[in-house]
């Protein structure tokens, strides 16, 4: 491909200093009421990271309690509240908005070559709703923390004495926040593409966000109405879900999982997008099977809607429905495997640079593959009867959610950190952090597969003494994870204070965000960029310039 990847109004590869989005306006209000997608993204990022710290803190409390078979640090009611809050915070406040609303908000319009998202006010509203939803959810903690598990299953959720309503209402509001983000992204990608940015020149991150947004728009309203019905059931006893009043709790599970299974793809598909960005750049090689990766995101989004009943094999669901859901669940392995194989093929014979983002991407490939394959065990109805509600399930979804989504989130955070902040973090410490997270992750969750297959049920406060060694190992792993994240927080914070100034293109990416200064100017692009090549073309036309520690266009293009 002879052409340079894009022709942009190239500013000299300088960086911050002059006007950029961080310095364009001053004052707290210029942040709270900003309509700039990058600032909204930064606010989302800070909020999500705060929530992540809180959710992680609860996780450590839960793991500490499980050090001994009996009481360790808290009573059983508090334990129930802790794992519920951990789950609810991590799902609704961290993972769902994490990649799309935080990273995506900043990066997607830049990658697209747009000046902003289609509806800046709606974008801001989405963030404000996130704050309101988070406050509601945390108010439950202040009143009498909810103890239903993040799933809010009836009839327990309609009868327990804890503060279910604020937590559920918080999740309801967070749902609308998520819908608005998704809606905004779809319209942005349809209507704000600059000249030459055809659908198949969109970076894979955009494709992933597009698929995610479709799920957000189609599935999230259902959780909205479900939680609303549950709240009304709890307050007015309307008898739709409560069996004592003629309702049907299995129906609640259908409603809940019609959203919540697609929601796991809201969490993981953006992660696929991040990995799809990192791997070609750090392999210095064009992505392999671009169209397959792009379209497989859509396929996953669609298939994700047809499988929700695999959460209900032992809930009283009929065998007929179970069989259908089980069969379709196997199909999802196909588009997922397409992605993994294509990423691996991209690395084949590439020039692999093991920088921090790439380490996270490699960690992702490892843990996500384990998480995905154990999901297939659980999709088999007969196996699920044995494994359902055991630590095997806990390990499986933590490998996917924590090992998949959070690892990719960390990878993306490190990959785009220079772009967001204009500062470089300490690369060597970054690698140590990534290694700690990877080791901690596996030490925490791999023993849980063994625990689960031996019959340790999830959510239990007491357990048989024979399970203790593996529980202790798992807790030690959790502490390692905690140290890894603390270290990461520390060096990222330090980079803001004393990090080296980031070049325009530190990693040699060809997507459009690397054509903006770091941090990007307030208006992203002075002129709409004219795109003439794909997002992963033209690495050969970039060369590393040691004086600025970043990539610059080659003077003479390789033809």
């Amino acid at each position, binding site marked *: 491909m002879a052409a340079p990847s894009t022709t942009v109004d190239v500013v000299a590869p300088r960086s911050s200093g002059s006007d950029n989005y961080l310095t364009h306006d001053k004052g707290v209000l210029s942040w709270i009421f900003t309509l700039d997608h990058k600032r909204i993204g930064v606010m989302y990022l800070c909020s999500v990271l705060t929530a992540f710290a809180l959710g992680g803190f609860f996780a450590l409390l839960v793991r500490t309690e499980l050090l001994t078979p009996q009481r360790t640090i808290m009573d059983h009611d508090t334990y129930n509240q802790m794992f519920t809050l951990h789950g609810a915070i991590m799902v609704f406040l961290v993972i769902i908005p994490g990649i799309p609303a935080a990273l995506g908000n900043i990066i997607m319009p830049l990658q697209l070559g747009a000046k902003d998202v289609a509806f800046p006010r709606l974008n801001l509203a989405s963030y404000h709703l996130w704050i309101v939803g988070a406050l509601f959810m945390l108010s439950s903690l202040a009143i009498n923390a909810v103890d239903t598990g993040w799933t809010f299953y009836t009839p327990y959720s309609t009868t327990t004495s804890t503060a279910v309503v604020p937590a559920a209402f918080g999740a309801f509001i967070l749902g609308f926040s998520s819908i608005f983000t998704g809606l905004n992204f779809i319209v942005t990608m349809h209507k704000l593409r600059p000249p030459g940015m055809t659908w198949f020149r969109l970076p894979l991150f955009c494709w992933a966000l597009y698929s995610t947004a479709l799920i957000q728009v189609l599935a999230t309203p259902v959780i909205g109405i479900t939680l609303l019905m549950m709240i009304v059931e709890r307050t007015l006893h309307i008898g739709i879900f409560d069996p004592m009043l003629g309702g049907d709790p299995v129906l609640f599970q259908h409603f809940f999982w019609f959203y919540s299974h697609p929601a796991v793809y809201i969490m993981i598909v953006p992660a696929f997008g991040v990995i799809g960005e990192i791997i070609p750049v750090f392999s210095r090689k064009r992505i392999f099977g671009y169209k397959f990766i792009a379209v497989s995101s859509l396929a996953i989004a669609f298939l994700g809607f047809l499988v929700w009943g695999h959460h209900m094999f032992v809930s*009283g669901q009929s065998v007929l429905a179970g069989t259908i859901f089980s069969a379709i669940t196997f199909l999802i392995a196909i588009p997922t495997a397409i992605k993994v194989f294509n990423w691996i093929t991209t690395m084949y014979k590439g020039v692999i640079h093991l920088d921090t983002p790439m380490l996270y991407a490699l960690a992702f490939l490892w843990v996500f593959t384990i998480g995905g394959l154990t999901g297939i065990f659980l999709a088999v109805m007969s196996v699920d009867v044995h494994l359902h509600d055991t630590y095997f399930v806990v390990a499986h979804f933590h490998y996917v959610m924590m090992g998949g989504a959070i690892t990719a989130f960390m990878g993306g955070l490190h990959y785009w950190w220079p772009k967001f902040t204009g500062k470089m973090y300490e690369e060597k410490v970054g690698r140590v952090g990534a290694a700690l997270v990877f080791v901690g992750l596996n030490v925490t969750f791999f023993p849980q597969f063994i625990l689960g297959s031996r019959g340790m049920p999830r959510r239990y406060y007491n357990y048989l003494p024979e399970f203790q060694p593996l529980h202790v190992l798992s807790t030690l792993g959790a502490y390692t994870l905690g140290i890894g994240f603390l270290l990461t927080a520390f060096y990222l914070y330090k980079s803001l204070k004393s990090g080296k100034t980031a070049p325009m293109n530190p990693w040699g990416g060809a997507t459009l965000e690397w054509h903006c200064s770091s941090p990007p100017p307030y208006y992203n692009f002075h002129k709409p960029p004219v795109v003439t090549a794909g997002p992963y073309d033209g690495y050969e036309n970039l060369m590393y310039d040691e004086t600025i520690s970043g990539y610059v266009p080659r003077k003479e293009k390789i033809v």
Partner: protein
Amino acid sequence: MANDDTPQNAEQPKSMQGSSEETPTIAPEDDATAPNPAFEPTEQDEPEQDEQADAVSEDPQQGHEKHEDHGLAHTMPIWMMLAVLGALMALTILTVSVTSFDLGSEGNLVVAMVIATIKAGLVVTFFMHLFWDKKFHLILFLTAVLFVILFLSMSITDRGEYQHNIDLYTNATTPAVGK
């Protein structure tokens, strides 16, 4: 791919949709009192102003609802709106009056739903402009319907399958709702 929505193909509006009954006016009858900033010319806008003026003088000849590509969107003629309302009213009367006939166990429900769907179709096609609108919007709407059907059909199928378990339970226990 870029069937409906590549922004670069967006055509700048040249004129408005003409209509059969009224001459569309850029300067409407009451415009003198309230200038309309939506198309108030700025200093640079003079050429456009001319174009619009041209368009106004041309439009009555074009005259029919087929010219949906003029203006930002299609303009629906008044007779059509009134006809749709008439049809909707007639169908409402029909669906009410058909209730007094017994059409078998689920016959009435089926008829009511068919009539409701025809009414919904009229609203979506004409009032909501889907007949003239981008096909992608139609696809979106049908997607919504498809997903509702998916959601309902699986939930209801499953419920039908395990209903006998619930019946066993309710018949074995005393009715729950108290006095």
